[in-house]
């Protein structure tokens, strides 16, 4: 397809085209990817070899102080005028060794089995005399998390160590050339100028490593263990067993995980499509009505809708979930009985109709929540559609419906497709609406692990890891969700120009 043909497609067709291309090009992409990886490995090996050479040659050719500073970090710096830098290097070395000896090393050695260390303690007393009691010295999750921490610390330390030897060699060279190495103050000044990125990024990167990366690696590794309520204290590596269970059809306890997973994936897709498009189209219609020429009090109408999203979501959702409760006094039943004249006891979470009532209610309430966002989003763009387009359509005899489907919708799709896809991904992961409104119910015996008919993958993940304590299985589902969402995001991201023309404005 030529570029000009591509430009004539509407955004949905474009997305579909990109989507097809993505899979068509997948073999080539993969090949390119592995080639790139191979090249990267080669480059890395070359660089590594050069580094090793520098490292070794520097050691062989250096004087005694440089040689010594390969073992006592910072010695070279300290004796050659960079006292504070030397002290910092030395402190890091001491801290790392202390960390490994007293703490990290023990966990690291158990990392490959994860087996918790236990011993039996004899408890005397009772009528039967002494009895044996199993006592855990360490827990498997501790081993896992501290092991990762120790590995991360080691990588960081190796980097610092290499930097320190390099710095020691450089100091020697500078000294030999008869110059003075940069003072501490000068280096600090450099951190505000040519090395400003280090100053800026170091704190956020450390925080992200500890509070995002570490938990993330922990959870990814957890997907390959049998960590659950039965193996709470001591668990092992199990390879891909969790992924196998997700797709298995075997029925234990009346329901199979494969069936549950398949149905929940299906419902997640239905939900995401219905929620995204209903909000998008209906929101646009309302926005058009508000912005129509001749409609007064525009600001009042807009504020009326926006009020519902300005109130914190947990308030509105908890409120609505109480309002659609099953008791005869809930507002929903009061309104129904106002129309029918008889007291009503309608339960949204009825198991009848295969849970479709609850599903429909969730989608409808999501319209209530979502339309204001669309109004906010689209108002500005809708105003940008040239008025003469509508005028000429009207002269040609098009009604409001026709001009909406032929002018507004294509134009809006053209501009907001990336936003639409982000919303779609947001809806796949829409935890709040489902969890607070129905809690995933109505529950059904067809599904395993207490999952219900309105459960999305993300609420299933929550239920598995928080309520059911099937941590390994939950993490495996999380990884699958990630793969799907990441693929979609990457395709979208490649579609937007802003990713490619990063410097278009500069």
């Amino acid at each position, binding site marked *: 397809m030529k570029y000009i043909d591509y430009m004539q497609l509407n955004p949905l067709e474009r997305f579909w085209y990109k989507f097809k291309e993505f899979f068509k090009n997948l073999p080539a992409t993969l090949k390119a990817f592995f080639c790139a990886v191979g090249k990267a490995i080669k480059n890395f090996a070359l660089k590594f070899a050069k580094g090793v050479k520098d490292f070794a040659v520097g050691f062989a050719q250096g004087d005694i102080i440089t040689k010594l500073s390969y073992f006592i970090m910072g010695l070279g710096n300290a004796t050659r005028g960079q006292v504070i830098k030397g002290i910092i290097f030395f402190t890091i070395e001491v801290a790392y060794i202390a960390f490994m000896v007293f703490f990290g090393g023990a966990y690291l050695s158990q990392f490959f089995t994860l087996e918790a260390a236990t011993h039996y303690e004899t408890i005397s007393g009772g009528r039967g005399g002494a009895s044996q009691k199993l006592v855990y010295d360490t827990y498997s999750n*501790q081993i896992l*998390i*501290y092991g990762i921490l120790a590995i991360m610390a080691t990588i960081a330390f190796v980097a610092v160590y290499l930097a320190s030897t390099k710095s020691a060699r450089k100091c020697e060279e500078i000294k030999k050339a008869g110059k003075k190495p940069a003072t501490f103050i000068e280096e600090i000044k450099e951190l*505000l100028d040519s090395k*400003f*990125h280090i100053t*800026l990024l170091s*704190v*956020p990167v450390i925080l992200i490593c*500890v*509070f*995002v990366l*570490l*938990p993330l690696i922990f*959870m990814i590794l*957890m997907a390959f263990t049998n960590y659950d309520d039965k193996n709470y204290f001591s668990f092992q590596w199990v390879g891909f067993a969790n992924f196998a269970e997700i797709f298995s059809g075997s029925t234990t306890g009346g329901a199979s995980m494969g069936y549950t997973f398949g149905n929940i994936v299906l419902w997640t897709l239905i939900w995401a499509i219905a929620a995204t498009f209903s909000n998008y189209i209906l929101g646009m219609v309302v926005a058009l*009505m*508000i912005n129509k020429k001749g*409609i007064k009090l525009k600001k009042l109408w807009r*504020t009326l*809708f*926006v*009020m*519902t999203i*300005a109130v*914190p979501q*947990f*308030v*509105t959702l*908890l*409120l*609505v*979930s*109480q309002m659609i409760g099953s008791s005869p006094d809930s*507002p929903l039943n*009061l*309104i129904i009985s106002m129309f029918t004249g008889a007291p009503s006891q309608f339960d949204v979470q009825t198991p009848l109709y295969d849970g479709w009532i609850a599903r429909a209610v969730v989608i409808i309430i999501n319209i*209530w929540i979502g*339309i204001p966002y669309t109004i*906010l989003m689209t108002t500005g763009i809708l105003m940008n559609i040239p008025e003469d387009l509508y005028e000429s359509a009207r002269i040609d005899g098009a009604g409001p419906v026709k001009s909406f489907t032929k002018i507004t919708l294509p134009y809006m799709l053209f*501009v*907001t*497709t*990336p*936003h639409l896809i*982000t919303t779609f991904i947001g809806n796949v*992961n829409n*935890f709040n609406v489902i*969890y607070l409104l129905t809690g995933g119910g109505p529950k059904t015996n067809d599904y395993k692990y207490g999952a219900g008919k309105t459960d999305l993958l993300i609420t299933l*993940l929550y239920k598995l890891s*928080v309520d059911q304590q099937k941590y390994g299985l939950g993490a495996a589902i*999380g990884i699958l969700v990630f793969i799907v*969402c*990441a693929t979609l*995001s990457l395709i979208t991201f490649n579609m937007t*120009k*802003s990713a490619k023309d990063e*410097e278009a*404005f*500069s």
Partner: protein
Amino acid sequence: MIKSYKLRRGLANTFIYILLAVLGLIWIFPLVWLVLHSFRVDPAGGVPAAAVDHLFPTLEELGFDNYVGLFKDTMFLRWFGNTFFIAVICCIISTLSVLVVAYAFSRLRFKSRKPLINVGMIMGMFPGFMTMIALYYILKMMGLDQTLLGLILCYSAGSGLGYLVMKGYLDTIPHALDEAATIDGANQFQVFYKIILPMAKPMIIYQILTSFIGPWCDFILVRLIMQDNVDNYTVSRGLWMWTEQEYVANGYFRYFLSGAVVVSIPITALFLYMQKYYVEGVTAGGVKG
């Protein structure tokens, strides 16, 4: 067929007015219900029953008892204080780290820039839920579980990853400005402090407001980290607790209603104020597509 164009438009507009009014009523109905019922008290002086058989409270049922009780008899004020404290600290940390990361990625050129941007994007695509359990363990090992400090760390430590929107905005500020300043002898820090900061003000305000509102709305992470340490709950967790079965049975639902109104007032005001920034933030980087 109605011939007169004016009449037709008048009819269409009337129809739209009616439709908008009906929709507006539907949209605002739950909020009106919330506010009216938060003022509903038992005329006899006791605890009002959880349920009523009429949709809106009658005139003699209205009073301020729920609000007085909310501040006098419950832990609401403490929760409010907790949340305010957390929100202020988070707001400072998050804004600073987002700004700093976005600036470094947008303005500075260094060797590890591209790889770091990619790693950051990939990390942002994992569902946040996955890390919750691990976060709890990490906090527990640090002895920070069930504390406000732990919660603050959870909310703000990873905020540097949300650099995309800010970076998109900074990318639009012309590089010529930096260059001019550099020629005049400014170092990178001065460029950041004296040129970029003032120019990025609207986006910084957006960032400040979103990170301030965040802690008021989260309830999942609080539930996991605070467990049953009621003293350190935030408002959202506390209000959520009051909608649980046993609390509703003990008449706490009225406090949920009044508490929800009290929390909503400042948040709603902030949101209405930041509307325009919100639109800018959401559409930044996307509209160019």
